[in-house]
């Protein structure tokens, strides 16, 4: 009955077709992600792929360090300026270090560094692979009996997986330095109090959570960007559209993953340290 009505109404028919297409795309993406993950794990065991991984590590990791450091520094400095007035109003300005450093290492450092990487690295990956797709270079790799996922996706995915956490450390470090610079040098908060409150409030667990998030953010960004590049439509417009979609999808995935990971980390924390989590 429903299908009979749907078939007679072109708008409902188109909507059902589009929905079917989207469901198909999700399945295709899941297959691609699984294949990429398995191939990447296999690549770790094969030394012949190491030169490809080093090359991607240089492009993805090393060249991203300056922009990640700048991002981290501005996050720390801005947080210090924004929070100072509120804390000074209730006489707690010496606690500024806790607020800045916990925000930087747990949330803002990892998320903003990942978003910055999604723009810088994700966009470049999609554009590069998309151009290779439309100029038949991916077909050429396949025609020569080489798995394009192994040759193109695995090195990029491993580089993103391994180096996003490392880049988050840089973002955290510069965020902490930026916060200290504004708080102690510019706002003249007592340095000893600033650091002792920070040391009391920020655990290794907090820093670790932020860094672990990097694995998930890096993996998601790499898979999405490579998938969009591999499935990019013809022409300059197709490549441009793929880059935009890759960034938007990566951004949303980072935020969604962050939310899910926070829930998991909180649950783990309250399991291992039930009393401390109440403090």
């Amino acid at each position, binding site marked *: 009955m429903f299908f009979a009505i749907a078939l007679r109404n072109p708008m409902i028919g188109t909507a059902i077709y589009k929905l079917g297409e989207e469901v198909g795309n999700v399945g295709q993406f899941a297959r691609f992600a699984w294949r990429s993950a398995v191939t990447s794990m296999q690549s770790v065991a094969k030394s012949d792929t190491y030169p490809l991984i080093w090359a991607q590590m240089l492009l993805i990791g090393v060249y991203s360090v300056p922009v990640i450091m700048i991002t981290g520094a501005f996050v720390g400095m801005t947080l210090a300026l924004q929070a100072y007035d509120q804390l000074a109003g209730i006489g707690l300005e010496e606690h500024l270090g806790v607020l800045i450093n916990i925000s930087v290492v747990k949330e803002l450092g990892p998320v903003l560094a990942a978003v910055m990487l999604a723009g810088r690295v994700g966009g470049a990956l999609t554009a590069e692979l998309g151009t*290779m797709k439309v*100029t*038949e*270079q991916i*077909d*050429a790799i*396949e*025609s*020569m*009996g*080489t*798995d394009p996922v192994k040759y193109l996706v695995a090195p990029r995915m491993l580089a993103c997986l391994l180096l996003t956490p490392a880049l988050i450390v840089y973002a955290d470090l510069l965020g902490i330095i930026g916060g200290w610079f504004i708080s102690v040098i510019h706002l003249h908060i007592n340095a000893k109090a600033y650091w002792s409150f920070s040391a009391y409030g920020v655990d290794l667990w907090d820093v670790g959570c932020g860094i672990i998030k990097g694995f998930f953010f890096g993996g998601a960004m790499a898979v999405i960007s490579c998938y969009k590049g591999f499935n990019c439509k013809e022409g300059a417009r197709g490549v441009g559209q793929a880059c935009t979609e890759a960034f938007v999808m990566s951004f949303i995935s980072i935020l969604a993953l962050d939310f899910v990971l926070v829930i998991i980390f909180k649950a783990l924390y309250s399991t291992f340290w039930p009393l401390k989590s109440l403090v």
Partner: protein
Amino acid sequence: MNTEQQTTDNGQTGIKPDDGLIVLKNITKRFGNNVVLDDISLAIEKGKTTVVIGPSGCGKSVLLKHTIALMRPTSGEVYFKNKRIDNLDDQLLTGVRAHFGYLFQAGALFDSLSVAENIMFPVRQHCQITRFSAVEELVRNKLKMVGLDGLQHFFPANLSGGQRKRVALARAIALDPEVILYDEPTTGLDPIRADVINELVLKLRKELGVTSIAVTHDMKSAYKIADRIVMLHHGKIIADGDADNIRSHPDPIVQQFIKGEISLKELEQLQKTSAGSSVRLPCDIED
């Protein structure tokens, strides 16, 4: 050669997997509602050059990609050396594809690699290199074959269209493949460079005994290199034979295509639309 195909009761053509080195059996390929290949059967004979001709967009390149399973058919089967390949996964296809060389329409050279690295690519993927000087010698030899020795350290962006195509051909023959697939080998080249490519195709067949499938709409090239010419039209094979058979084919569509003539209907339509401006420009062009 399998130019005559018997149709069985269930609509399947009576082509057998061992009828040729490569056999396409009842291949249909659809993109959405668009049927690009419509129940095509074709057997490619070993050591011969088969040329597939047809108007742009008729599915020639799609057909070529099916022979190496770069595209999978919506229905039908593809055989290489009597072994079905269209249902193999990519890992199993790796070994099969090492027997093929593929010259892509625009070359498809890797931008980030030099000419020498492009030619080395398939060698690195399939051979355990123990002596690098041997690979360098191989690259020099392949480049000599296509008349481009000395360009080893150039990057594709620094080459002309003809040079890119010849480097792509050198890469396609790097592993001395049994089968070479040519997608529009002469398109975009000047007549002299196009003839160089034709001579190379002939030379490879003569010296290496390779089986070739070429897709083209360049009839001069087709007549020169083909042992057999197959014409595709609206996803079906409408002509199949040697150059003489094709020249004297009774089908007007074949005749119109090989002579490169516009149809009367299209001509009438063109003449009805005047080149002058019955439709005015929506603005004045400033000096």
